């Protein structure tokens, strides 16, 4: 991939395009564009104990919106990693990984202004090192979860998720981890991952999130002009409401050697936005995204500005999903998926973001939960196969199924921070 032509792009557009390209040249371009930023990035800590023991403990370190909902950082990179050597990792390799990651923690504040990140391991990793995961962790191979998909599995070993409000930070952090730069935010890079991991460039994924960002991509094929200017997501509505997210506690493994860790599912999908914005009306988008009642009661507004800390899907609306299918001819994505809640509480902590990887609109749907099985349960509720033929179609008027096309799925274990460096499957 080559660097984008600066001409005709806004600063933000250009920086996001640069993140998508990655590498030293991208970092250089980023600095040339945004040279002032580095000084402004807050530094990290020399005391690892001061950081939370959960890798996924991001919420307290991130900003919130006016309603108190956690805001994810603006720039995201998913770096796919493949082990250089087979077999049980050596202590030396573990030391290398831990030291490399600590370099980032010393360089950047654990926040959206600095950098937050996780490293997760696939079932393929535990298979490759010959160390099955402890009985307390179910980490299945990723499979197709609907009859409409035939996803490529993430069958490499590990995945780094880097996130920051600064394009330069995610780029430099990635370069630092692979020894491509000598210094990161004033901290010398002495150890890097390159003796342990290879980067799989064709599996590298990037994305963005934030008000107004989707509308800046209307020059991308498949991204229509009709996207509302302030929409934070491609689908045109706010998401990630506090009441609809699992808490970090709820998503955390509580027992066994990986207590304090979590599981991560990452699916990558194409979005059909032309149909969504140019054929469906706002009324239809609201009923398909939330529920028909959201239309009746005018609960949403243009982009979800009327919703504050919740998608507004009440217990009553969740209960009425089947009835809505039969009597309204349409059901909402949110009401359908919420059927999987346990004691009224959501199971998933979503950290998904939009992308134009491959020069078309999509989502990297990243979700954290205590068990992968919980993700599967929510996905089944969202698929609503039980509703198809009972007033709604297989995909039509059946939530947002008609607009999403899953290409990849991956399951990961995110160990607690003390075990994040090449864990064995059962580190008793």
């Amino acid at each position, binding site marked *: 991939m080559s660097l984008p032509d600066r001409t005709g792009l806004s600063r933000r557009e250009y920086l996001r395009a640069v993140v998508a390209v990655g590498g030293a040249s991208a970092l250089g371009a980023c600095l040339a564009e945004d040279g002032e930023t580095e000084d402004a990035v807050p530094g990290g800590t020399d005391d690892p104990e001061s950081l939370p023991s959960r890798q996924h403990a991001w919420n307290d370190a991130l900003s919130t919106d006016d309603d108190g909902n956690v805001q994810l950082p603006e720039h995201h990179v998913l770096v796919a990693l493949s082990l250089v050597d087979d077999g049980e990792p050596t202590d030396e390799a573990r030391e290398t990984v831990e030291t490399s990651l600590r370099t980032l923690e010393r360089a950047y504040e654990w926040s959206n202004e600095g950098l937050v990140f996780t490293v997760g391991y696939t079932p393929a990793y535990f298979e490759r090192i010959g160390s099955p995961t402890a009985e307390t962790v179910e980490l299945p191979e990723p499979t197709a979860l609907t*009859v409409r998909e035939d996803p490529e599995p993430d069958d490499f070993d590990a995945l780094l998720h880097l996130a920051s409000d600064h394009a330069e930070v995610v780029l430099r952090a990635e370069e630092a981890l692979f020894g491509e730069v000598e210094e990161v935010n004033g901290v010398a890079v002495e150890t890097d991952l390159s003796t342990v991991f290879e980067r799989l460039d064709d599996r590298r994924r990037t994305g963005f999130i934030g008000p107004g960002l989707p509308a800046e991509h209307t020059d991308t094929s498949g991204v229509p002009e009709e996207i509302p200017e302030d929409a934070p997501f491609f689908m045109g509505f706010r998401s990630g409401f506090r009441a609809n997210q699992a808490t970090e506690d709820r998503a955390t493994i509580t027992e066994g050697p990986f207590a304090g860790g979590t599981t991560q599912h990452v699916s990558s999908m*194409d979005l*059909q936005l032309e149909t969504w914005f140019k054929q469906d*009306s706002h009324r239809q988008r609201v009923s398909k995204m939330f529920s028909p009642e959201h239309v009746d009661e005018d609960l949403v507004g243009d982009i979800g500005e009327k919703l504050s800390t919740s998608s507004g899907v009440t217990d009553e609306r969740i209960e009425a999903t089947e009835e809505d*299918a039969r009597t309204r*001819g*349409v059901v909402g994505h949110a009401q359908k998926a919420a059927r999987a809640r346990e004691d009224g509480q959501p199971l998933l902590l979503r950290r998904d973001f939009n992308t134009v990887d491959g020069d078309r609109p999509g989502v990297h749907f990243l979700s954290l939960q205590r068990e992968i099985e919980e993700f599967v349960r929510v996905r089944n509720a969202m698929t609503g196969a039980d509703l198809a033929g009972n007033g709604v*179609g*297989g995909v*039509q008027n059946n939530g947002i199924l008609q607009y999403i096309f899953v290409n990849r799925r991956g399951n990961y274990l995110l160990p607690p921070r003390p075990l994040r460096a090449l864990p064995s499957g059962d580190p008793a």
Partner: protein
Amino acid sequence: MMNRRRFFYCAGSVAALTTAAGCLGDDDSGDGPDADDETRTTAENETDERRVAPDLPEIEDPPDAVYVPTHREAMQMLEPVEAGAYALAPMLSYPHPFWLVDGRETERVDPDGSPAVHLMFTLWDADTGLVLPVESGAQIRVERDGQEVGSPRSPWAMISQEMGFHFGDNVPLDEDGTYTVEVTLPPIGVRKTGALEGRFAETETATFEFTYDEDFRRAVIGGIEYLDEDLWGERGALEPMEHGQGGGGDEGDDHEHDDSNAHDEGDGEDTGHEGEDGHDADGHEEGGGNGQHEDHGDGHVPYSSLPPAEDYPETLLGDPETGDATLVTTLLESDTRLTDGSHPYLLVSPRTPYNRVPLADMAISATIGRDGEELATVDLEQTLDDEYDLHYGAELVDVQPETGDTVTLTVESPPQVSRHRGYETAFLEMPPVEVEVDMEVPE
């Protein structure tokens, strides 16, 4: 490698209501559309070379019922493609308006003037020739020169007077050239009975190509066949398109009807497709339900037409109309294969008037009443059967119907399928209808 140029432009006859439309054959590899120049009307001469879609006249205030549109759509028929248990026939036309349905609301979709085609396909069972009129999440991906054009999409399940039940969408293209379309057909999830039980359980993929160029645009835009303006918006319907593969034969046939005044309202034999007084759905022979079972395999494209009411066996309870649809309602005795043998089966087969196109993705419930009291209410389940085709049915477990009982059919959701012009105002407001049980009625 398929022969892309082996296609048919369906156009020609203006006598759309009274005759089957002629499909002009062109199975040469040559300059297809030019071959039918002589059958064109002035519309062609007015075609702007760069136009991607025609300016179609509007009908003010159409009835809340099936009505005659302003024109017959011209389209290019591609060779049918087989994929596992399925066969499908792709069809291409200019982008044009259609209507989405959610609940009882419609939303008109207009083309935006960019290069695009209205891409359609009819899907049927390769074994029985039965059109499969349910939406189960088919996907299409369009490529040009190995590059995907736009994002994948799930085309809309649609009904049209000419094509019956099909899948379709206005699909944006880049520029002139050859496009490849990959259609992915997931398993069909609705209840399947009879010879269809257990079938359509695999995902299949079909691929076809088409050329988008000036010849295509001229042919489909120039081939539009406008009806006599007096007919626009009148209650009635275009006849199903015939997808014959007769080449010159069809052309000759077409000439016979190439008469701009050919519509003959007085023609008793053919006015089954028209008129306010009852739909006479059963008297209509063209595109009949049984024909479709025989037409496959020789290049014919079956039309989704349900059997007429009298073909339903056992106790026909009635064929009430609601929202301009006909709900053929019958009671099958407990020995029917559609139940486990201990209870009778209530079968409701909703269809359009005139062409008997099945109405999919409805929700219907039935309430059995006796002496003014409600005995039971059951939700009917959408079912595909090789003999009865698409219907909504339920085993009557809690009640044994007797002569004199009433069956009230409540349409909880009208058919959630998109509509071509002439169907968009019908099948929306569908008040409950009642039929009476008469166990003595012979089949």
